[in-house]
């Protein structure tokens, strides 16, 4: 058996499930997964449906598209209207509905110039090929993505490009977890920590949270046994009253993270406040351009501002992102709001909680 198959070995999975059941005697575990890929993996692997009732899974704010605030969407849609601007973006943002019902996809149909790129680096080629235009890359994503954008901005500077800009909408995970934990309505009892964000930031940033709130937290991979082991470790730590941060994804995540990526990240950006959809401003949870890279900041250079706007009517994304409401309890879920006709971003992205529930939960319901 290859080492990979062992991560799916049904006997091993059953054994861990049994250990979870033992560890759960008389206790509850309301754990939140913080990464959209974990949301999907929990459903797709079937792990979600095998867990004892005392283990409650909350979906967290871990999809970068879903946490992009209405004001941020409004700002880039405004920019897309300018004749001299080409928007470069990851495809995930194309269908995210703006406050007025617009989206990049609609803007494109109306003539806006929008390039979907796979890497921020590809946006540099767009800038070089269109010297008379201003190329604005929409910098969404957590600590995994932000270094890739930072490295691209550094290259733009090295290459003397003056028509390449970034709208920094990045969000940082640990301050968001702190904000969620400080909300007494949440009652989170454990965190399944994101695999690839942790590959960059390492374990250190989570440790104060585990201490301050007494929350067990486990960095997890995406295979069935990874998920089950993470749940077992959380349950055991809770039972023993010894909450801490454990790295259970050592094959990809080094305890110290990736210092080189962090150095590049914090050369280009510095921490700032960020707006989170449905949550609001979380201090220190975002990234703004450092002084040396200010000329690449689309807000500064192109005179764009974030304006307050009303949330999408009826959409309960905020409660979904905070784990307070399961997606299928939103009154619009699977009715007005479906992956084909998304009302909120949680239904747009394949990693969004609502889209994941729609794809997996509905298929599991009786009669399907």
């Amino acid at each position, binding site marked *: 058996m290859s080492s990979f198959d062992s991560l799916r070995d049904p006997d091993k999975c059953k054994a861990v499930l049994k250990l979870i059941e033992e560890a759960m005697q008389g206790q509850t575990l309301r754990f939140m997964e913080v990464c959209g890929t974990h949301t999907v993996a929990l459903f797709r692997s079937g792990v979600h449906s095998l867990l004892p009732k005392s283990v409650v899974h909350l979906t967290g704010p871990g999809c970068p598209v879903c946490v992009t605030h209405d004001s941020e969407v409004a700002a880039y849609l405004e920019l897309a209207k300018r004749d001299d601007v080409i928007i470069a973006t*990851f495809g995930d943002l194309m269908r995210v509905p703006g406050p007025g019902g617009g989206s990049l996809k609609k803007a494109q149909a109306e003539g806006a110039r929008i390039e979907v790129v*796979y890497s921020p680096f590809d946006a540099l080629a767009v800038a070089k090929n269109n010297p008379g235009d201003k190329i604005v890359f929409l910098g969404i*994503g957590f600590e*995994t993505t932000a*270094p890739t954008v930072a490295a691209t901005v550094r290259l733009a500077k090295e290459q003397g490009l003056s028509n390449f800009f970034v709208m920094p909408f990045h969000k940082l995970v640990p301050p968001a977890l702190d904000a969620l934990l400080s909300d007494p309505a949440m009652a989170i009892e454990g965190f399944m920590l994101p695999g690839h964000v942790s*590959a960059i930031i390492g374990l250190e940033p989570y440790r104060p949270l585990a201490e301050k709130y007494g929350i067990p937290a486990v960095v997890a991979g995406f295979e069935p046994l990874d998920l089950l082991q993470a749940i077992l470790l959380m349950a055991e730590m809770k039972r023993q009253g010894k909450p801490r941060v454990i790295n259970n994804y050592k*094959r*990809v995540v080094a305890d110290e993270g990736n210092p080189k990526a962090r150095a590049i990240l914090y050369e280009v950006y510095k921490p700032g406040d960020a707006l989170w959809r449905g949550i609001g401003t979380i201090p220190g949870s975002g990234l703004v351009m450092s002084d040396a890279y200010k000329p690449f900041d689309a807000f500064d250079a192109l005179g764009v501002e974030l304006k307050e706007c009303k949330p999408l009517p009826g959409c309960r994304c905020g409660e979904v992102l905070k784990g307070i409401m399961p997606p299928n309890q939103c009154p619009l879920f699977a009715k007005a709001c479906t992956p084909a006709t998304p009302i909120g971003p949680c239904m747009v992205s394949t990693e969004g909680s609502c889209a994941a529930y729609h794809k997996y939960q509905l298929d599991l319901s009786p009669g399907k």
Partner: protein
Amino acid sequence: MCLAVPMEVKHIDGDVADVEIGGVRKQIRLDLIADRPQVGEYVIIHAGFAIRTLNKEEAMETIKIFQEGWNLELI
């Protein structure tokens, strides 16, 4: 954009590498990693940049995740 899967390094030219998995080839950048991969090793890619080098054994443990139907366009 949030998926990060291991791909095999086939060729390296300065800060740029050609990587492949399951017949899908990509050109990626190596700027973000200090531990430069050798040809034949694997890297975890995110948004066109390698974020971690893995040896073959480590890579094999994770690799089938996406052989089972992750959308390659989303990598």
